[in-house]
């Protein structure tokens, strides 16, 4: 623990800290461009210069200098001020003064720091250099003349994303950042380089020239595109959410966000259900709310009601629907739309127990039937970190490019009962062994043998729980906690032949099996569910309602409402409350606060932000694994939910990045 002095204040810093970190701990702001906490240190922008004694009598790059015992650091001396002004002037030599037409304007590190630390005027009157634009795919817009060569994007794709495709070509003044042959950056985290870029060289292509940051209302929310529950910020203007940015949460998404979570935003304004519809003579006809409620009341289902929840609904909606079904006398609730029927009597057995942040400490990981990179890209970055620390990873299931070395054990699930020697040894000798069970494995009934495997290899130890199930739906854990699980899965609902099937934005259900039921679809997009519905009640998307979400590790998180639902659409709980009136029952809440109160009384952990505890794993019963994993549930990463399917950006990503279609670029 070296002791250093920063501007006359003595403080102790952790061993291995840099001078920059020491200055931050002392509360001093150090300007920087290339340095980033989560990336390796490059030390090439020179903006973080400080004066350090003992040492050479010149300013030193604090980001790359280890803090050492007895250092006297000055961040406020004339030498430092002059050094910063000098660096700033050099950086601005080739940087265009096009802030008025630059999308980074208002949230630009270079702009802010030149105001705070720059000279105020330039002495440079030669020609500035210009660099041709580089194509980096449908999400990243490049204006490479603005690039200051901090190489954050290069380091991000190499270190975090694990896809080496951005590089710095040529050198010195001629240096250019590009992908090889200007191919599109094709991975699920590519758009994070936009956030990382300290200038306007890499900006968001779909969001280009949409808005200025100061015009936007910022709302804290939770990403529903996968079960990671990334913390996001919705930036909205008027009635429209214009962009989605990640928020920092080291336990969940660090500060990254998958491209789908970020760019499905334009799907929120397309293909929306903005008025009720009723099916008459086989055709959906626009209707009023009154007509729709009358139509539902006319079904007069009595007890014969079932609810199926979609992948993106919040806990409040599911609880309100549960209360409605309960008031009618039905307990037929199901959220696993595609027919999964794993045992949910103990939620610890279907939870990501290692936690997302914890899994990076694992030293041997067995992935069974999960395409982690597509099912939860931000869990894959954690696994990548684990591998960098020396973890061994084994995969059961079809091969996929993990971005780190893995050993594939084939598609046959029987391998779980008798692991090959190298995998068995790795799990046996590991300090923190882990198993990750994906949807494909759950679908083949591998949960039992995975639990047996957990017992055999002692995956649960003191301070470590290595048994993980990776879900893909944002609503899954919340739904399971609220009892949206029948013993036989959705087949139980089919068997019950309900007169009325309430679908909470469920778009993956095979509705042909409910041919005799009246399907009431409460959702926000005209997708598969709406096509099969008899009555459509337009509801709010995740950005248009407050709600509670539980991610795959059982983390309860709250999202706020950013905008209002379009047209006649209403928040889901109000629709369910009105349905209760139409059906003549009492659900026991009249306001959102009352609903949330009732929900937390029923399931208290949903009231506390943070990890829910599900207790110990169940005792493993004798189970034999069988079957082979032919394919993973996600066929197209960019089009997994109705919002993404409605999004033009996601459609283009799918066509261009996954299916190799070419798009002609408009000439500028």
């Amino acid at each position, binding site marked *: 623990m070296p002791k250093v002095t920063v501007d006359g204040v003595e403080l102790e810093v952790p061993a291995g800290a840099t001078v920059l970190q020491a200055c931050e701990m002392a509360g001093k702001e150090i300007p920087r461009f290339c340095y980033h906490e989560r990336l390796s240190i490059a030390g090439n922008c020179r903006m973080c210069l400080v004066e350090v004694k003992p040492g050479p009598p010149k300013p030193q790059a604090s980001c790359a200098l280890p803090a050492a015992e007895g250092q006297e650091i000055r961040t406020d001396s004339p030498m430092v001020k002059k050094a910063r002004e000098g660096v700033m002037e050099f950086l601005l030599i080739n940087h265009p003064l096009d802030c008025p037409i630059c999308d980074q304007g208002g949230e630009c590190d270079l702009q802010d720091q030149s105001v705070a630390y720059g000279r105020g005027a330039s002495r440079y009157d030669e020609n500035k250099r210009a660099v041709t634009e580089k194509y980096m795919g449908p999400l990243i817009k490049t204006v490479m003349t603005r690039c200051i060569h901090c190489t954050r994007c290069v380091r991000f794709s190499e270190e975090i994303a694990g896809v*080496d495709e951005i590089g710095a070509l040529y050198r010195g003044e001629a240096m250019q950042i590009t*992908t090889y042959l200007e191919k599109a950056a094709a991975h699920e985290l590519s758009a994070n380089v936009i956030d990382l870029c300290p200038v306007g060289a890499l900006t968001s292509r779909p969001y280009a020239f949409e808005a200025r940051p100061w015009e936007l209302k910022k709302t804290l929310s939770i990403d529903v595109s996968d079960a990671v529950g990334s913390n996001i910020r919705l930036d909205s203007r008027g009635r429209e959410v214009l962009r989605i940015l990640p928020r920092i949460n080291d336990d969940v998404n660090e500060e990254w966000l998958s491209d789908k979570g970020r760019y499905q935003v334009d799907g929120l304004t397309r293909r929306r259900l903005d008025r009720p519809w009723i099916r008459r003579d086989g055709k959906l006809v626009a209707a009023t709310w009154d007509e729709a409620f009358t139509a539902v009341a006319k079904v007069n289902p009595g007890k014969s009601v079932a609810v199926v929840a979609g992948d993106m609904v919040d806990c409040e909606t599911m609880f309100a629907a549960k209360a409605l079904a309960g008031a009618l006398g039905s307990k037929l609730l199901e959220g696993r739309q595609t027919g999964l029927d794993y045992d949910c009597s103990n939620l610890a057995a279907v939870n990501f127990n290692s936690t997302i942040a914890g899994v990076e400490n694992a030293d041997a990981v067995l992935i069974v039937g999960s395409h982690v990179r597509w099912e939860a890209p931000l869990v894959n970055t954690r696994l990548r970190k684990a591998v960098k620390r020396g973890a061994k990873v084994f995969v059961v299931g079809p091969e996929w490019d993990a971005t780190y070395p893995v050993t594939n054990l084939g598609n046959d699930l029987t391998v779980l009962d008798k692991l090959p020697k190298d995998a068995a040894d790795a799990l046996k000798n590991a300090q923190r062994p882990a198993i990750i069970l994906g949807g494909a494995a759950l679908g083949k009934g591998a949960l039992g043998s995975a639990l047996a495997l957990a017992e055999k290899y002692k995956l649960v130890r003191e301070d470590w729980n290595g048994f993980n199930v990776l879900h893909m739906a944002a609503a899954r854990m919340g739904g399971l906690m609220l009892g949206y699980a029948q013993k036989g899965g959705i087949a139980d609902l089919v068997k019950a032949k309900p007169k009325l099937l309430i679908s909470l934005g469920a778009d993956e259900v095979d509705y042909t099996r409910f041919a005799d039921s009246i399907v009431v679809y409460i959702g926000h997009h005209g997708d598969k569910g709406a096509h099969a519905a008899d009555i459509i009640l337009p509801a709010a998307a995740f950005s248009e309602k407050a709600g509670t979400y539980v991610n795959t590790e059982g983390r309860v998180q709250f999202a706020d409402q950013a905008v209002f639902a379009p047209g006649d659409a209403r928040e889901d709980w109000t629709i369910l409350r009105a349905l209760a009136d139409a059906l003549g029952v009492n659900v026991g809440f009249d306001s959102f606060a009352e609903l949330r109160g009732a929900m937390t009384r029923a399931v208290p952990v949903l009231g506390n932000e943070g990890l829910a505890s599900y207790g110990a794993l169940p005792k493993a019963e004798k189970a034999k694994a069988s079957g082979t994993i032919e394919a993973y549930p996600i066929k197209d990463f960019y089009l997994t939910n109705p919002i993404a399917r409605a999004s033009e950006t996601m459609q283009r990503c799918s066509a261009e990045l996954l299916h190799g279609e070419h798009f002609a670029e408009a000439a500028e």
Partner: protein
Amino acid sequence: MADRHLEPDTPELRARWGTFAWTKENAAKVKEIIARYPAGRQRSAVMPLLDLAQRQVGAETNTQGWLPLPVMEYVATQLEMPIIRVVEVATFYFMYNLVPVGKFHVQVCGTTPCMLRGSDAIMAACKKRGMEKGHTTEDGLWTLTEVECMGNCASAPMVQINDDNYEDLTAERLDAVLDALAAGKMPKAGTQEPGRHTVEPLGGPTSLKDMVKANHDYRKEW
């Protein structure tokens, strides 16, 4: 020098170089080069391999050689490294030619010491023979490039042609060198000043004169 660029990726380029593979001798050399580095660190061999590839391309085309994209991809695949990292290396170092060059790559130093010693005349002599900066002559013999300091300031002005330096040049001496090269001869590399061996002072030593005959201890005289 700032106008370096990659040769465009065209079907013709792919057709010509897509089938690039090491010759038998070079394959043995490659094995030896990779073996110099610890297992798993084979990408450290990227620079010697690129150099070797450039020489092989040169031998195939009877030029100094250059690095077509398919050849870089070949090296990247062999070293199991991302292609963009190989291109980064190849574009960084000026010794790798990114576009086709002639049989002799004439690199004239134009940095201050050489300029003071008459590099302008050298450049003019090159141009008089039909060379043009950044271009290859029509007979495919010469490519002219102006470069920055090559570290031969004590024997300026200098020119580097392929693997050899020619120093202490005048326009006439350069002409003699180029004529010899064109005639297929190997002129003497290094200084072209008669009587000079390397970069010792012209006209005998000016300091440490006592050292010429024997090892002299100067310490008493300090």
